[in-house]
C-alpha cells in the first residue's frame, strides 16, 4: 500500500480527483487524514451507510466552536454560532425533525411546480440578453445571478436588492471554506451576518403589517401558530435558504455544461433527444456534483471498514468518490446522459437529503432545455480550472463560451 497524500488541496487532486478516490476506495476505505484531522470515507457503501446512520451527528458547529475557539473568541462570535446552529443542515433530531417537517412542505415537488413561472421568466430574460453576442461568461452572465434571483424571488426579497446578497453570501462562504477560525475571516463573516439579518428583519417587519404571497410570509404564519418557533428561526432559515440555494446551483450549471461541452457526442445526443434531459442532469450531479463531500461527527465508538472510529471524531464523507465506485456504477468514469437508474449521493441521502433538490432539478431542466435549443453552436473558449476547495467542486471564473 502506497503512502496517501494528506493534502486534499494538492493541485493534482483538485484538478482530477478520480485517481486519488480510486486509491482511497481500494486501499484505504476508512482513512485517517492527519492534516485534515479526521476520517475520510470513499466507498459507496460506507458513505451511504454514514449518511443513513443515526450514530452520525450533523452538528459540526458545536464541536468547532467549543474545541477550536478560545473562550474569548466564543464570546465574540456568539452570534455566528447562534445563527449557524439554527440551520437544519447542522441540526440533529429532535430539533432537526421538527424544523425539517415544517420546511419540507414548502419544497415538495408539487409546491415547487408553482415556482415554475418565476424560473422560466428569469431563464428567458437572461438568454434574451445573450442573443446576438459572440462570447459570454457562463458564470457572470448566468450561473451566478440566476439561482440567486430565483431564491430571492421565492423568499420575497425585492429584485433590486439581490446584488446585496452576493456580498453577504460571499462573507459566509469564505468562513465555510476557510473551515477554521482565522480571526479576520470570522470577523468579516459575523459582520456580514449582522447586516444580512438586519436587512431580513426589515422585510419581516413589512410583512407583519402586510403579509404577502411569498415564503417569508408563509414562514411567519407558521411561526405564529407554533410556540416552539421564534422570529430568529424565520430569519435564520431565510439566510440558510439564500445560501444553500445559490452557490450549489451555480456550480451545478457550470460543472454540467462544461462537461457536456467537452464531450460533443454526449452534447449532440442530448440536443437531439431532449427526453434524456432528466437523466442527463442526474448524470451531471453524479459526475461533478457541487459538493465533493460533507462532514459528520461520530456519535459513539464504532468500526468502519476495519478502522476504529471514536466518539467525537470527525468524518469526511466523499460523495464524489462514492459516485464513481465501480461496486455501484457500471463504467463509473464514463459520462452517460442516459444512465438510469442513477443512485448518486450528490444531494446527500437520509435525514439531510437536500431540501431544495426539486427546485434545483427544475431550474436545471428549464435552463438546459433553453440553452441547448437556443445556442446549438456553443463551444468552450476557456480552460476548465477547478477551484482549490476541500468540499466544493467549483470552476474558476471566467468560463468563456463562444455562442457562434
Amino acid at each position, binding site marked *: 500500500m502506497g503512502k496517501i497524500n494528506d493534502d486534499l488541496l494538492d493541485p493534482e487532486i483538485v484538478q482530477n480527483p478520480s485517481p486519488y478516490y480510486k486509491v482511497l476506495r481500494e486501499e484505504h476505505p476508512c482513512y485517517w487524514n492527519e492534516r485534515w484531522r479526521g476520517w475520510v470515507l470513499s466507498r459507496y457503501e460506507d458513505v451511504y451507510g454514514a449518511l443513513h446512520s443515526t450514530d452520525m451527528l450533523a452538528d459540526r458547529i458545536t464541536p468547532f466552536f467549543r474545541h477550536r475557539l478560545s473562550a474569548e473568541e466564543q464570546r465574540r462570535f456568539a452570534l455566528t454560532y447562534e445563527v449557524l446552529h439554527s440551520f437544519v443542515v447542522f441540526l440533529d433530531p429532535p430539533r432537526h425533525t421538527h424544523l425539517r417537517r415544517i420546511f*419540507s412542505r414548502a419544497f415538495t*415537488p408539487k409546491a415547487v411546480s408553482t415556482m415554475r413561472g418565476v424560473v422560466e421568466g428569469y431563464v428567458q430574460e437572461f438568454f434574451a440578453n445573450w442573443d446576438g453576442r459572440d462570447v459570454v461568461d457562463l458564470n457572470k452572465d448566468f450561473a451566478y445571478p440566476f439561482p440567486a434571483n430565483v431564491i430571492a424571488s421565492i423568499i420575497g426579497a425585492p429584485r433590486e436588492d439581490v446584488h446585496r446578497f452576493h456580498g453577504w453570501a460571499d462573507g459566509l462562504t469564505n468562513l465555510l471554506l476557510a473551515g477554521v477560525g482565522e480571526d479576520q475571516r470570522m470577523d468579516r463573516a459575523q459582520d456580514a451576518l449582522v447586516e444580512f439579518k438586519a436587512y431580513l428583519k426589515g422585510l419581516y417587519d413589512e410583512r407583519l403589517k402586510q403579509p404577502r404571497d411569498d415564503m417569508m410570509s408563509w414562514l411567519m404564519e407558521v411561526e405564529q401558530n407554533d410556540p416552539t418557533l421564534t422570529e430568529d428561526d424565520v430569519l435564520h432559515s431565510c439566510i440558510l435558504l439564500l445560501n444553500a440555494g445559490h452557490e450549489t446551483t451555480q456550480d451545478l450549471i457550470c460543472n454540467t455544461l462544461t462537461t457536456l461541452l467537452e464531450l460533443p457526442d454526449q452534447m449532440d445526443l442530448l440536443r437531439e433527444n431532449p427526453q434524456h434531459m432528466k437523466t442527463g442532469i442526474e448524470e451531471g450531479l453524479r459526475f461533478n456534483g457541487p459538493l465533493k463531500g460533507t462532514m459528520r461527527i461520530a456519535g459513539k465508538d464504532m468500526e468502519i471498514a476495519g478502522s476504529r472510529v471514536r466518539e467525537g471524531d470527525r468524518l469526511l464523507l466523499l460523495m464524489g468518490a462514492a459516485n464513481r465506485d465501480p461496486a455501484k456504477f457500471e463504467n463509473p468514469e464514463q459520462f452517460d446522459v442516459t444512465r438510469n437508474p442513477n443512485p448518486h449521493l450528490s444531494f446527500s441521502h*437520509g*435525514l439531510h*437529503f437536500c431540501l431544495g433538490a426539486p427546485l434545483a432539478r427544475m431550474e436545471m431542466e428549464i435552463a438546459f432545455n433553453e440553452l441547448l435549443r437556443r445556442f446549438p453552436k456553443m463551444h468552450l473558449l476557456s480552460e476548465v480550472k477547478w477551484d482549490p476547495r476541500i468540499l466544493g467542486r467549483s470552476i474558476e471564473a471566467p468560463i468563456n463560451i463562444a455562442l457562434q
Partner: protein
Amino acid sequence: METKRFRARVNPDLCVGSTMCILEMPDAFRMRADGHAEFVGDALDPDTVRDVAELCPVSAIELINED
C-alpha cells in the same frame, strides 16, 4: 357508492430515505435496513395516500389500487 381502498408502494430506486413518510404516518411506513422506506400499513383511502405521496421529496410513493 363504493369507496375504493388503496395501498402505497415505495419505489426503492427513487427513495432517498428522507423519513418524511414515516414521520407523517408511522403506522403505515417503516425504514428497512437498506435505508429505503417500505409500506407496511393496511389499505387506505386514496386521499390519504396522495397526501403522503406529495410530501415525498423525490416522488417515490406510488398509489396502488387494491383490486
